[in-house]
């Protein structure tokens, strides 16, 4: 009984402390908004960062921080925070629009944007459903599979072919959705993507500053991280270019 009381008290203190921290983070966010409205973008950026450090995980906050970074000419950071906001709110029109705009003004043209229309349409389609929606659909489809199987137990007479066809379709849809969900979740949880937040970075053939320079990459470009070695990242661009970049050049999304 004594131990239970101690545990309850500990949980209560921990919950209260956590709630207070959240409130403080929200307060910082709102202060940052005020600063932004007053045109003090650099101060607003600092406040947004403080609110995020305080534990605020909000697409709104990431988006506003992206805006503040954009206003103080930190394009790479702006794109980074828009990308992070997009992870939390993949269909937010404002986030999409600002990310598009920021990408349009960065120095390096995004090779991915040069893809054909069909590919871009498929890509948009791929990213359209959120993992939450996918998991709901998956659950529904799985329930449908089991419901169909159960129904057959008590209704063996109707056409077996029709029943089996529907069941197979549901199974296929469930498997596809499950696979889709898995890939999306894996992508979302991975930190394999990064944004160049330094003004410029030179990719080299080996993780060494004296090795051959392969290409120069500029602030705001999105790269895929293949592996890490010491203070170097092996990155790959969407056009296939690959090279080693110093760690301080990039920030993982």
């Amino acid at each position: 009984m004594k131990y239970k009381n101690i545990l309850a008290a500990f949980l209560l203190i921990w919950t209260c402390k956590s709630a207070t921290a959240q409130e403080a983070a929200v307060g910082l966010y709102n202060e940052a908004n005020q600063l932004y409205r007053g045109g003090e973008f650099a101060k607003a950026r600092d406040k947004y960062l403080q609110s995020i450090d305080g534990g605020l995980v909000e697409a709104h906050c990431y988006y506003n921080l992206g805006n503040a970074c954009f206003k103080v000419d930190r394009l790479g950071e702006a794109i980074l925070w828009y990308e992070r906001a997009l992870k939390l709110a993949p269909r937010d029109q404002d986030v999409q629009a600002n990310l598009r705009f920021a990408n349009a003004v960065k120095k390096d043209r995004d090779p991915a944007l040069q893809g054909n229309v069909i590919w871009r349409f498929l890509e948009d389609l791929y990213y359209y459903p959120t993992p939450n929606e996918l998991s709901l659909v998956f659950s529904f489809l799985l329930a449908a599979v089991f419901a169909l199987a159960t129904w057959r137990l008590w209704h063996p007479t109707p056409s077996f072919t029709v029943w089996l066809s529907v069941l197979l379709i549901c199974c296929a849809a469930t498997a596809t959705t499950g696979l889709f969900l898995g890939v999306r979740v894996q992508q979302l949880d991975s930190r394999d993507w990064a944004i160049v937040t330094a003004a410029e970075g030179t990719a080299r053939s080996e993780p060494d500053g004296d090795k051959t320079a392969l290409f120069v990459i500029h602030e705001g470009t999105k790269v895929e991280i293949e592996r890490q070695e010491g203070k170097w990242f092996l990155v790959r661009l969407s056009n296939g270019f690959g090279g080693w970049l110093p760690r301080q050049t990039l920030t993982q999304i």
Partner: protein
Amino acid sequence: MVSQRLLGVVCCLVMFGLGGQARADITIEDNLFLVTRGNLERVYIGQQLTLDYDLFYRFQVHNVGFKEEPTYSGFWVEELYGAQRLDPHREQVDNVEFNVDLLRQVALFPTQSGTHMIEPMSLSCEIATGSSRRRNFGGFDVFMGQNTQAVIVRSQPLEIEVLSLPAQGRPKNFSGAVGRFNIRADVQPRQVAVGNPLTLKVEIGGEGHLTGIEAPDLAALQGFKVYDPKVQENINKGRGHYGGSRRYEYILIPEERGILEIPSLQFAYFNPYSETYEIDQTASLRIVAQGEMAEEEAQTFGLSRKDIQEVGQDIRYIKPDIQEASKPLVFYKSAAFWSFQVLLPLTFLALLLLQRHQQRLEGDVAYARRRRAKGEAGRRLGQANQFLAQGDGKEFHAEIQRCVLAFVADQLNLSAAGLTNDICTRLLHEKGIAKDRIDELQYLLVECDLARFAAVRFTQEEMEKVREQAEKIIIDLERVL
């Protein structure tokens, strides 16, 4: 009245020796000239003046093309006709027959009063020059040779007098239209709900330049909200005439219920033929507006008549303040999601077992009886309890006996009717039941027989013992059978 006349005959020739000099006995200027013919010599501002450029010739001419064109300053110019190829008709000038081709026809609309000079038009062409094979066919000289000569033909300048429009009798709503016009109007639908749009189409058309036509003023229209019109212009031109129409399409929103009237619309113009101002007007139109004004509908109804142009780009504005941090639900990581995934197959498994059980109950009588035996025994024991409570010893023992025998019959899938105490004990013996249990059962059954058929009275405690004994036997037998 301004009369039609032949304005001038001009010959101004410059010759270039391409295939040799023109023959001395041929006077080119008498046989090739460009004539500007206007239908009027005095016109009002805005009135149509039609100019024809006719080429008169008695040679074979080729490669005719305009070289210098007048600037027509002080006029709106609309081309009515431009010849693509020579298609002559014949005319006589001083008893000499000429081929005549209308090369160009333009409609001029004066914009300023006063005397205006129209500069000469010049054109270049090639004529066939002399050869020994010159022939005369029907009064026309025809050169059969291959030599040609380039010639430039120029018309004479033309003077036009432009009159101001009379100030007398000028209507207030006159907007500068000169010609002959009419106005028509129609509204659809005639019956509409208040707040819903209707379309008023006003068409002004006729002969004359359309620049003087202005949209009818509907600002004073009562009971309607009026939006800027969409304008569509239709030009109709052909040889000698120029005209067309302008159609104004208004969106009107009735703001009151009842019968609303769109009053007669007027259009004033100057008719240069009658030299007076005239007014054409439409009949008034009535529509029936029903229901009440839907405020939101009226406010949000999209009535943009032009595509919106983007004039600049910037990032979108920040998101608003928040009151509290949201707790983002990651469904695929939640316990509910995974519990559901686990529960689904487990539920299916349970239902499958249930279905199998039901199937067995339906198809296997022995199994069904065995499954029901305990329940049935419980029911009978309950009945016996009631007899016990009533102090009815005979019925109590009879019920206990029936209960035990029925239980054994159900367990062994036998008919309870033919199951006597002896048969029961024998069967249990055959099933390998322990002797002490069989004895216990036999004792109970004998005790019940005694109570039913002998004049033995049992106390309440004894009967309760019997019931407990029966319960124990049933539980024991269920375990071993």
